[in-house]
């Protein structure tokens, strides 16, 4: 999100050579450097010091703990209407929060600030589905190697190793299951590339069979399990499934699938990741609850479902369920008409209003947004994006960090 133009990060920028297309192709990541993505990988990295790393690590750790408490409040205080979640879906999410915390494999926090003395603030948590994983795990190390940074052992570069460890812990917990994992999405290339990291980590952790299949080819059988149909009478069952399809999409766009997954999860017929409670964390609906529960925490931006609560200050309007800056609007204080608006696919959802945050920028008016991965709920990995615009969206550049 946008903000005041403050405290330049110019002194932190290190020019980096572009990752060559030949390497991207060999790594299966050519998509990140061609066509509309030709300028996606930034020609500079941001240098972070230990203080910056500590700030970001603490922010992710504290934000996760607060968001879990917010989810618990949703259940205890029946705040489901703040998420538009119908009664039919509440049982599964409640059960998931109580029983599936250990299945939260990966999510990505998006922060504002954090550098040059700008307070770090939580913008949102991509708790269920997320991007930037392939870039963070594969491309960032390549850039570091190209620029002679050999030391990549600190936590901000350990996303993949932590993914492997977390999948290993899941296998150790479910010794009564076949170590077979089905990964799925709706066929988007970027989602597929991010899922490939999940596949690789799962295989490294010990899953004996890891298969990718688009969602539409998966057979969900009530009372039986999750299958891939080989032919009319031949099926392969998978005891684990990882989806890059958000729970909110499933609930609102494919409610019959939601009911089937409810049946399979509640009857212990398949282990599905990320678990259903992450839907609450990913929704912007959690932000007003966070603001009410932790109004004095330095990480937390003021937020509300009522525009009037933010009207007296610059604020941002975001859809209850949205992604990549879609349908975001920016308002000046006491203005009812936005001065900036993104198109998108999520404008039909109710809106949440959030205090406008301060982002770092450089002398060329690029705004910088740091992100921290949470693997198993723990901070693990940093990446950044930047954009010469007022909002970070699909046109942002990926920025590596050096230490």
């Amino acid at each position, binding site marked *: 999100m946008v903000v005041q133009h403050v405290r330049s990060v110019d002194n932190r920028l290190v020019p980096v050579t572009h990752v060559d297309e030949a390497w991207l192709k060999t790594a299966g990541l050519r998509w990140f450097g061609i066509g509309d993505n030709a300028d996606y990988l930034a020609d500079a990295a941001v240098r972070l010091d230990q203080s910056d790393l500590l700030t970001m690590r603490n922010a992710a750790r504290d934000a996760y703990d607060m968001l879990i408490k917010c989810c618990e409040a949703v259940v205890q205080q029946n705040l489901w209407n703040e998420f538009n979640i119908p009664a039919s879906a509440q049982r599964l999410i409640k059960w998931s929060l109580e029983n599936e915390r250990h299945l939260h494999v990966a999510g990505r926090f998006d922060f504002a600030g954090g550098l040059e003395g700008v307070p770090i603030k939580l913008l949102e948590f991509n708790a269920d589905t997320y991007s930037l994983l392939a870039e963070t795990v594969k491309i960032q190390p390549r850039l570091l190697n190209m620029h002679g940074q050999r030391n990549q052992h600190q936590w901000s570069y350990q996303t993949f190793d932590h993914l492997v460890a977390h999948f290993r812990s899941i296998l150790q917990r479910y010794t009564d299951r076949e170590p077979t994992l089905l990964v799925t999405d709706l066929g988007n290339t970027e989602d*597929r590339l991010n899922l490939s990291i999940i596949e690789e980590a799962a295989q490294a952790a010990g899953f004996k069979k890891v298969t990718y299949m688009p*969602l*539409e080819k998966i057979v969900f059988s009530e009372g039986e399990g999750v299958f891939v149909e*080989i032919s009319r009478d031949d099926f392969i069952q998978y005891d684990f499934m990882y989806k890059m399809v*958000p729970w909110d999409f*499933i609930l609102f766009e494919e409610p019959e*699938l939601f009911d089937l997954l409810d049946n399979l999860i509640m009857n212990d017929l398949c282990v599905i990741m990320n678990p259903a409670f992450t839907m609450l964390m990913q929704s912007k609906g959690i932000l007003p609850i966070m603001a009410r529960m932790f109004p004095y925490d330095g990480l937390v931006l003021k937020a509300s479902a009522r525009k009037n609560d933010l009207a007296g200050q610059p604020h941002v309007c975001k859809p209850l369920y949205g992604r990549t800056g879609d349908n975001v609007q920016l308002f000046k204080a006491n203005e009812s008409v936005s001065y900036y608006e993104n198109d998108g*696919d999520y404008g039909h959802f109710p809106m949440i209003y959030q205090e406008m945050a301060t982002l770092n920028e450089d002398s060329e008016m690029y705004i910088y947004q740091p992100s921290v991965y949470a693997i198993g709920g723990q901070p693990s990995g940093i990446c950044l994006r930047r954009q010469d615009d007022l909002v970070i969206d699909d046109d942002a550049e990926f920025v590596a960090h050096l230490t």
Partner: protein
Amino acid sequence: MDFSKIKNILIGGVILFVVVGFLKDCMCSSSEETETVEVPTEGTITTVKEVEPDAFKIEDETPVSNPDDSRIIAQYMNGNVDTFTLAEARLYEEQAASGNTTSPAGSIFRAASFGLMGYMMGRSMATPPAASAYTNSGAHARSTASATRMRSTATSVTRPRSGFGGGRSTRSFGG
């Protein structure tokens, strides 16, 4: 779905669950869309021969009465022989359709799919066996005759064509 028999086979790290049952009572994959396809009622034992390193052609195809008895026999240049089941071939085909083609036996399955085995791997029965897929014209001629007979004895089935999420926008769901 009624599982009357389950056989686990561990081959090269791949666990296969071969389930004998029936799909039509399965209330899964809720799409209303269906398709009608021709499926063979007989099978084949296909022998493929490695003619160049990692390049195979069909040398022989012998019909068998039960599709489940179908096999692919691969003869390598070094004299080794491998045998694959229809289930393994179908799994490869499913994965290949999704862009996941990491099986080392991929070239064997691809070669076999250009002949009669292809009909059991999902290729349309209207497509005749490709002459270039065979080691010699005699093998191709025999298989062409077999294909004609297989089409005459094929059965029509109607099954779900797409499941959840089919036909949706393919924008990224990554935040």
